[in-house]
């Protein structure tokens, strides 16, 4: 089976009309007509992850995010960049293929990125979750205890919290990656991956800090993009196994990039 045939099977099974205009969900590197020996799913096709996939004999990488460090994977300013050359040559030399699935994952039902992110932080009932965020109720706890639970379950070293650790919380609103939802009247805690800190469409950080100053039970957890959005890429692999049976499919997570 070739890379192109793998993608055709995904398009056939995805359950939503395929948008050929998406600049994200395209082949990024390698020859789409190369034979696929094994498939790796991941959130971030880092150079480190590529090497691990290759060592595991998986020559097709299906990633949720970009390859060349900008959302559009625009390479015109990178042709003389040594890292661009290194990464590109590594993929070509090893007959690897990189393909991105982003936009269509977020229109799938369920959206595996949301399902995986909810599961990873210990919030139950999100097995059918879609991109549009909704409130999940957890047994009442303090924001600090909840944040500690999230740290324990995700293993994240560098996630960031805003709000009063002593506030009593039970209503959780989650969006993965950069899709951090805005705080609402109903929610106690918003969980996301990352977001612009200020001067955006809605500045959660300032809003939650001010709400906490007023004694309102509001908290914000930003997990980091990789930690937040990665778990669903394992679900994507499981789903692909229902229609691709003769090629190994493995979840090859990217590392959390931070130390503190």
């Amino acid at each position, binding site marked *: 089976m070739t890379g192109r045939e793998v993608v055709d099977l995904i398009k056939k099974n995805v359950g939503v009309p395929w948008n050929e205009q998406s600049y994200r969900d395209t082949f990024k590197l390698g020859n789409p007509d190369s034979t696929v020996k094994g498939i790796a799913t991941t959130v971030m096709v880092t*150079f480190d992850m590529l090497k691990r996939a290759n060592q595991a004999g998986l020559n097709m990488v299906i990633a949720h995010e970009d390859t060349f460090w900008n959302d559009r994977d625009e390479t015109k300013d990178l042709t003389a960049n040594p890292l661009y050359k290194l990464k590109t040559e590594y993929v070509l030399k090893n007959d690897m293929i990189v393909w991105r699935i982003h936009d269509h994952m977020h229109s799938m039902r369920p959206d595996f990125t949301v399902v995986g992110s909810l599961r990873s932080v210990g919030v139950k009932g999100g097995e059918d979750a879609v991109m549009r965020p909704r409130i999940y109720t957890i047994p009442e706890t303090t924001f600090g205890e909840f944040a500690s639970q999230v*740290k324990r379950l995700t293993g994240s070293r560098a*996630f960031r919290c805003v709000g009063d650790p002593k506030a009593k919380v039970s209503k959780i609103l989650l969006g993965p990656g950069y899709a951090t939802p805005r705080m609402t009247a109903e929610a106690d805690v918003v969980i996301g991956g*990352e977001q612009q800190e200020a001067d955006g*469409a809605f*500045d959660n950080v*300032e809003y939650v800090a001010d709400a906490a100053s007023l004694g309102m039970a509001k908290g914000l957890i930003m997990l980091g993009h990789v930690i937040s959005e990665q778990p669903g890429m394992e679900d994507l692999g499981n789903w692909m196994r229902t229609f691709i049976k003769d090629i190994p499919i493995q979840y090859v997570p990217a590392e959390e*990039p*931070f130390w503190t």
Partner: protein
Amino acid sequence: MNEPEISRRSFALLTGAAAAAQVPLPGANALTARDVATRLQNALGGDWPTTGPDGFKAGNPETPVKGIATTAMATLDVLRRAAKAGVTLVFTYEPTFFGRQDGPAPAGRGPAGLTADDPVYKAKQDFIASNGLVVFRLREHWQTRPQNDMVTGLAESLGWAKYRVKPDDSLYEIPAATAEDTVALIRQKLNLRGGLRAVGDRKARVRRVLLHPGVMTPATMWQRYAETDLLVAGEVREWENTHYAADIHTAGEQRGLVTIGRVASEDPGMRACAEWLKTIVREVPAQWLPVGDLYWRAV
């Protein structure tokens, strides 16, 4: 300063300073927030379009000013400290009301929208009104100063002012130390808590540091990374710049990226703003109110 080319900005600066030196006569009209803003606008120059982000955001511009404060972001905590310190007029670099719209806005595409009856918005407006505060956003026109105070202010807070490589650039050549030790120094000097996150080799030798308060784009990073051992930025997009820094690390290059938080990175530049304001407004005191690190990390 070049004599024949006194700009509108520097001319206004001179006249502003002269006016400020005069002792107001008894019974003369009190200095209002609008007077201060006008003096500042003349001193900085520029067009001050009403559609831009800069301008009055809350309070009555005709309020007599007893004291001035500058801040990176007028959080409720900052406003409370301002009121306690006898401040009337607050200059803020970032929005006051939770977004670029800086006030109620219809819900649009994505997670936008702030209703006029939002409890946090109302409480903040009420606090501003009941304490007679006036809030003015000062971002784009402060950035245009050739002195680049956002960068030099940050360098000063880090104790690196004297290590600037070129007078018009943000590259600093500091005494060599490991990335780990340099990051520890940044955390301590800026009093950071949970907002600091670093990428790269902890043991890398750091000498050349690029200071980039606020948001750093991928293009800036691609252009400047090769000449830099450690990039210090406010915030980046993790699937862009952080991804790049991680790959640079995997490629074996001894270069790192540390993000310290957008507002934390902008705090020192607004201390420089308070110092500058003292030179053009002498009738009332001006002070800096740092926001600090808004983040904490769970244990």
